[in-house]
């Protein structure tokens, strides 16, 4: 099994669908963007989601989580994607939260994760230093002096970093950029002396931070995982975050496709509905196929996590490779088929297009994941 929703998951999905439709329709995301909202998402809504237990879904009960797994989380993320809700799932739960879960000591887990689950604490994972996703390509350094480390360097694309309480920072403790060995993870307080956080508003209306570290001191008990062995924490974190992001993409492509399909059925030119034109019908049929295939891959990758399958990494990369391509296809076709109106800021389809491009490029594009998949398959 694993490719169908259970009854509980269907109930959860329907609850989430209603919740987001009522409280976070696409206009809400647009309003946050237009107001250049300092937070970038709705803290109030995030707290409500915490109360509903949705943030806690992937975390074990021992740290205040619900232990329900990624198929369940996926239903919420997909509905989130359907309305483009910019809630900090990726930054706080999938990246930062998972880094603490996989690498944190008992003390760190219990200090940080209950607040994550309740929606009170925002976390970020600062890993990226260049435009392209390359998780081991880290130059930012951490040097040891007795019981603490000193971090120097800079990061970009730190999702929701502008409001994070703690920034989990990937730094190099040995080796050189590109090497898997020699990375270490540190829980850095957002207000630590020497840290500078600047906000970048992204094309999809979401927010990320550019962070510079100048002799930022971190105590040794704030390390996640082993010194030099940070990649052992990062790998499972990125796999889970990738699958979570794919779940969100699924909702956005589904909605963008459905809106485009409705437009084909409604829009008239040359005296007929444009959905009667075979050139458009075939492309719509192809989009449908890609959407269904993407859905299968995402559900399979979710269950690969939940069932602790050996081919989790393969499934995650296969899913992201496909979802990235389909995000590009459906996003692009959605604009094209909406014609001139699709180019206007007023029409919401453009918001989907931009979000889909951002999601496509986040955590590795299709080429990156096909490349990784090939490596895992032995070629």
């Amino acid at each position: 099994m694993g490719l169908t929703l259970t009854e509980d998951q269907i109930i959860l999905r329907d609850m989430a669908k209603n919740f987001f439709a009522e409280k976070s329709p696409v206009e809400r995301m647009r309003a946050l963007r237009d107001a250049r909202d300092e937070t970038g998402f709705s803290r109030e809504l995030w707290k409500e989601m915490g109360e509903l237990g949705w943030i806690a879904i992937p975390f074990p009960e021992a740290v205040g989580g619900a232990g329900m797994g990624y198929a369940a989380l996926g239903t919420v993320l997909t509905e989130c994607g359907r309305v483009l809700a910019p809630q900090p799932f990726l930054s706080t739960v999938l990246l930062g939260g998972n880094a603490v879960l996989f690498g944190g000591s008992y003390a760190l887990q219990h200090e940080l994760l209950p607040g994550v689950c309740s929606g009170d604490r925002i976390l970020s994972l600062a890993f990226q230093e260049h435009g392209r996703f390359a998780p081991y390509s880290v130059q930012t350094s951490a040097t040891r002096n007795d019981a603490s480390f000193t971090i120097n360097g800079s990061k970009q694309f730190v999702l929701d970093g502008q409001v994070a309480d703690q920034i989990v920072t990937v730094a190099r403790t040995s080796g050189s950029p590109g090497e898997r060995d020699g990375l270490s993870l540190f829980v850095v307080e957002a207000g630590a002396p020497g840290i500078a956080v600047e906000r970048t508003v992204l094309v999809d209306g979401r927010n990320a931070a550019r962070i510079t570290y100048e002799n930022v001191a971190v105590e040794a008990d704030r390390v996640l995982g082993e010194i030099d062995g940070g990649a052992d924490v990062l790998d499972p974190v990125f796999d889970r975050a990738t699958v979570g992001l794919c779940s969100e993409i699924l909702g956005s492509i589904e909605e963008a496709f459905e809106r485009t399909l409705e437009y084909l059925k409604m829009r008239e030119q040359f005296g007929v509905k444009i959905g009667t034109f075979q050139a458009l019908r075939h492309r719509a049929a192809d989009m449908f196929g890609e959407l269904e295939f993407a859905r299968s891959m995402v559900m399979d990758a979710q269950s690969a996590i939940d069932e602790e399958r050996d081919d989790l990494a393969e499934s995650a990369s296969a899913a992201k490779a496909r979802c990235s391509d389909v995000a590009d296809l459906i996003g692009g076709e959605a604009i094209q088929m909406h014609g001139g109106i699709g180019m206007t800021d007023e029409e919401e389809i453009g918001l989907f297009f931009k979000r889909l491009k951002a999601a496509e490029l986040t955590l590795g594009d299709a080429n990156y994941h096909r490349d990784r998949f090939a490596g895992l398959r032995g070629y």
Partner: protein
Amino acid sequence: MSTISIEEFRQEVRSWIDETLPSDLRVGNRKDLPKKSLSKWLKALIERGWGAPDWPVEYGGGGLDRQQAAVLKSELKRVRAPFVKSFGITMLGPTLLEFGTEEQKREFLPPIARNEVKWCQGYSEPGAGSDLASLQTRAVRDGDEYIVTGQKIWTTGADVADWIFCLVRTDPDASKHEGISFLLFPMKQPGVEVSPLKLIDGSADFSQVFFDGVRAQAKHLIGPVNGGWTIAKRLLQHERSTDGGSEGGITNAPKETLVDVVKREVGVENGVLADAAMRQRLAEQEIEQRALRLTMRRAAEQARAGQTARDIGSLGKYRWANMVKEEQDIAMLAFGTRGLGWDGSGVESGQLDRTKAWLTTRADSIWGGTNEVQLNVIAKRVLQLPE
């Protein structure tokens, strides 16, 4: 049989197969199986009623319920046993069970179940391919008979067939879908001429068939006169349900996997294929295989769970066709000019099989509804786009 549990039934099937199936046949439905051994096995299978396992016993079937038939199928598949596969069993039989009269069922089904009569399918015509309903072969009533005149094409096995199930026009004045009937008649009779069609892969399994004043008995018309189109479409569903997926038919598919071929031919340096673009393309092909398999499995799981699912029959056929073609395209690129040898010096048979498979698979996006027809079906039935 209904009194035993499904697990008992599985055990029964398993031990019967163990006793009956010789080891040299446990390689799947290949063309090059040892003849004597194969015919003995198929005879045993047929005597057991398992040539047509889910047909009623009175028509020569095995009388298994759906669950038992599925168990039998999976057990046969598990040991890669050859099974009886004919147009009679996969296509005509289910159609007769649904639309035939009692008399027609008793006349035609038992010989099909016993694999005694070979059938061929008279659908396509030179002027009626994707637009099948524009077919022109005429059948004119003459007393208790019809007289059939016209031409069919792409008729698999016409040269060896005993009978044909044939779409004929019985009312030339009606609109094109409404003047068609579904008629059965013998192939071995005056006025039938079969001319093999040689294809681009060198094979000649298909034929053109010419009918000139051929006789059919009026009682062998299935369903209502001029009501053949519904039956024709239903039969195509049986065709699609047996293809377009993982079941596969009789093939000479090379045993080496695509990944092995590409690794060997392209070369691997430090665990990475030497051609980066090829590596991406191969990964994409493997991902596509995975996605197709998962999508088919998801549809089956949804059906089992009683959840409503979108119809993915046409999607599956379409993507499957593209996938098999892409596999051969990649192999051709990997072999380079070595794959171009056709005859004479230096042509290895394994290599030629690949080259032929590349040519043969061009048909996969054409038969059983072209890719374009499948996309039309998805647009209309699934997406409900206006026409």
